[in-house]
């Protein structure tokens, strides 16, 4: 009797603790719900004032609030297109830098380098990944942008002091360690036996890598690059400090462009009242940004998982 009683009370405690642990775990779900709810709710209020079609398809973005009522464009223009092109332009430049640099360093480190070199270079790349983005932003604005402008004017180009190129370049370097570590994982997952087979019939190491390892790792590499792109799209500080505010519908990397994240920061810092379209627009942009990055991540993770399963 006594035995059974202690056992059942012990069991009850166990169940209570397990339930408590489950509650802790649900914070992850609550956070997601919180993000979605806050973005959707405020974005909904925004779309009561500005139509979804204008937001998605209008080519103009100028969210300034009118000082006088009769001012032209008093209500502001809320087309997300220029922000989207700006974001994509900078992310594209970043990936043009990060993809080859990251991939080639990963290949060199995993296939060629001596253990000693690897032990030196890997921490350096990790350091590059650990430096806060605000530091990259400072460097982009203070050093890289002026250099680009000087080089441009030396070659007869007119480059604005805040250019997509400067922000994209620095962001590209920032993403190199991410691409490199993700593709390192993927490349290491390609079975050694395939390398042996290729080398065993007289292929050189680079032939083995280019014709066997990389094609085998391609899906995984594609997944890694998608993850890195999603990171570039969501990056904030570098573009806030180096890309500028001009919402121009352009694909010219030498011009100043603005991005979704820059506009969110601009709209929400400083004194803001919480009911005008200007403030709420930030949430609509954020919802858009969240959706885009989420889709990219889900696809990327699926691809990488499937790739890894194929070689397990």
């Amino acid at each position, binding site marked *: 009797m006594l035995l059974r009683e202690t056992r059942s009370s012990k069991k009850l405690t166990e169940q209570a603790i397990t339930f408590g642990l489950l509650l802790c775990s649900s914070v992850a779900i609550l956070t997601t719900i919180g993000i979605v709810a806050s973005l959707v709710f405020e974005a909904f209020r925004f779309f009561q004032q500005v139509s979804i079609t204008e937001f998605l398809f209008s080519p103009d973005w100028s969210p300034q609030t009118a000082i006088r009522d009769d001012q032209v464009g008093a209500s502001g223009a809320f087309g997300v297109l220029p922000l989207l092109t700006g974001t994509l332009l900078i992310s594209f430049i970043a990936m043009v830098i990060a993809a080859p640099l990251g991939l080639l360093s990963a290949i060199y480190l995993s296939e060629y380098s*001596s*253990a000693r070199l690897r032990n030196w270079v890997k921490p350096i790349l990790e350091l590059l990944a650990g430096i806060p983005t605000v530091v990259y932003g400072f460097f982009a604005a203070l050093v890289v942008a002026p250099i680009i402008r000087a080089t441009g004017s030396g070659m007869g180009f007119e480059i604005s002091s805040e250019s997509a190129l400067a922000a994209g370049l620095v962001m590209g370097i920032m993403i190199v360690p991410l691409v490199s570590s993700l593709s390192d994982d993927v490349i290491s997952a390609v*079975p050694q*036996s*395939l390398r*042996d*087979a*290729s*080398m*065993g*019939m*007289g*292929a*050189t190491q680079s*032939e083995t890598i280019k*014709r*066997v390892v990389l*094609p*085998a790792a391609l899906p995984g590499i594609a997944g890694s690059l998608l993850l890195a792109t999603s990171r570039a799209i969501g990056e904030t500080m570098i573009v806030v400090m180096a890309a500028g505010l001009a919402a121009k519908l352009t694909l010219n990397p030498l011009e100043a462009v603005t991005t979704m994240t820059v506009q969110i920061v601009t709209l929400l810092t400083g004194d803001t009242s919480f009911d005008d379209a200007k403030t709420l627009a930030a949430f609509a942009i954020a919802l858009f940004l969240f959706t885009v990055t989420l889709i990219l991540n889900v696809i990327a993770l699926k691809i990488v998982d499937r790739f890894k399963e194929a070689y397990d």
Partner: protein
Amino acid sequence: MRKLTGTSMTESSQETERDLIMTARNVDVFYGSKQAIKNVDLDIPKGSITALIGPSGCGKSTFLRCLNRMNDRIDICKVSGDIRYAGQDIYAPKVDPVALRARIGMVFQKPNPFPKSIFDNVAYGPKIHGLSSSKSEMADRVETALKQAGLFDEVSDRLDEPGTSLSGGQQQRLCIARAIAVEPDVILMDEPCSALDPIATAVVEELMESMRDDYTIAIVTHSMQQAARISQKTAFFHLGELIEYGDTGQIFTNPKETRTQSYISGRIG
């Protein structure tokens, strides 16, 4: 022990010296500080199948991988001694291991087709070595190799399908076809049947038998029956040493060494 190996060696070298395609003398292999191969002398006669047998961990695979310098790829692995292919020292500084491996091909324990089509698997070697100048020549070469590997009839209608879609035995024959397509002189096989079922094994063994006219084969096997069935020469390795080497018939019926005797009667390993 070393004396004995020596005597069996002189016997064979006297009768077939000019037909020896590979010779190994005083070969030592170290993994870091651990010695994996101790002072091995071995000859591989041309146009024959030489079987390397012994308990697992005896160094037979390590030795096989020295013959086309696959061990170069392992940083801590150091090979010393004299290994010759057609009279040329293959570890001489001028030798390019890449070119060497084109002449001495390799088939591995687990079938490892590339994640490419059947055609591309076989065409891989000729492509990198620049052996075919036109598409039709390449197609001929792939067909010849597949025929030699006895696989052509089974896959002729699906050359575009991935090599990995084949059965295990077919995959291994694809790997053999892939090795043949480069036209090597010697093919090293590292337990090629250990991952296959008995029927697939029989097919591969038959294939090896038919290849003997055109290629010299050195095969590592854990199966004594297989060695007895297919090889002309057998070398018995134990703890990194070559214990006994001779004609297969002699090794299995009348071994000179007690350790060989113990192994083939199932008392070692």
